[in-house]
């Protein structure tokens, strides 16, 4: 598979994986291995002293040997997201941040204004910003122009597994932003969804629930890895153009039983 570059780092896998909702830490570790992912997302939440710190989880994640992508999930304004990103940078010793600024609690739709405001500040502060966004073209353009390392449109609302709800908008993003790193983040439920967006030329996909909540997360991780690879290969191979009418595959010349009467 052709390597790609994310935030200055060359990666072989085009599948980024979340760490939440797995049945157990061991299943998470096995799914990570089966997926071949090199990037894992993590969150940040309040710590009570009686819980002994987040060391146990953090040590398990570190042992998996992947790049860590902390998120600002749950933040509802630019300032909250900026502060959480600064805390994450110190905690994980990485400038990578998955920027999430939520605008609507029911759909978890990102706040375009807060996202762009936070992205501009964080880029100025030296972060490698991977911005979670909708499939809105102009917002994606602004995030790219702001210097985001990746723009990450949703396929569908987080955790729904419904797959691309507006494939045409995703295709437009890819066409209009040929030089941007574009990662489909959120809403994928099945490997075929991943293959679909990879065939469009997206650079990668980011998943969590589709793997973690599958009946067998480890097998599903492998299935997604193969789908992502297949989709990418198909994109690189340039799919045929669609036709409106049928065209026989077998030559008509030499067809038996036909005689000039």
């Amino acid at each position, binding site marked *: 598979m052709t390597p790609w570059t994310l935030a200055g780092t060359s990666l072989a896998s085009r599948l980024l994986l*979340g*760490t*939440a*909702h*797995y049945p157990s830490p061991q299943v*998470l570790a096995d799914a990570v291995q089966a997926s071949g992912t090199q990037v894992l*997302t*993590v*969150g*940040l*939440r*309040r*710590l*009570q*002293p*009686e*819980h*002994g*710190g*987040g*060391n146990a*989880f*953090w040590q398990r*994640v570190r042992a998996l040997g992947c790049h860590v992508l*902390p*998120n600002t*999930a749950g933040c509802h304004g630019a*300032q*909250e997201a900026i*502060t*959480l990103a*600064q*805390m*994450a940078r*110190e*905690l*994980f010793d990485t400038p990578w941040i998955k920027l999430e600024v939520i605008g609507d609690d029911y759909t978890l739709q990102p706040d375009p204004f807060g996202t762009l405001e936070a992205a501009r500040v964080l880029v100025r502060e030296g972060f490698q910003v991977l911005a979670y966004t909708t499939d809105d073209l102009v917002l994606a353009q602004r995030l790219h122009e702001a210097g985001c390392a990746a723009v990450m449109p949703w396929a569908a609302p*987080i*955790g729904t597994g419904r797959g691309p709800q507006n494939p045409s908008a995703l295709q437009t993003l890819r066409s209009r932003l040929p030089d941007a790193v574009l990662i489909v983040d959120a809403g994928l439920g099945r490997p075929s969804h991943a293959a679909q967006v990879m065939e469009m030329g997206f650079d990668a996909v*980011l998943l*969590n*629930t589709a793997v973690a909540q599958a009946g067998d997360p480890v097998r599903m991780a492998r299935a997604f890895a193969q789908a992502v690879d297949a989709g990418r290969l198909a994109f690189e191979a340039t799919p045929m153009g669609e036709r409106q009418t049928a065209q026989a595959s077998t030559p008509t010349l030499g067809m038996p039983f036909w005689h000039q009467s």
Partner: protein
Amino acid sequence: MTPPMNEVSMNGRPLQTPAATLAELLQLQGYDAQAAMACAINRQFVPRAQWPLQALQAGDRIDVIAPVTGG
């Protein structure tokens, strides 16, 4: 002499504390200073190196966070 008590909010819970600095507060509250955690006061990040120097004021809202699973 009894140190003055400040009322602050820590991870959303109000508390009275004699701690003069963030580092003292963390210690008094039972946090392991070596743990994987990061702090903010009044929604502003406080780097770890500043914890011993960061004076507390009455009404400060302190957040202490740690890594968790996430997507």
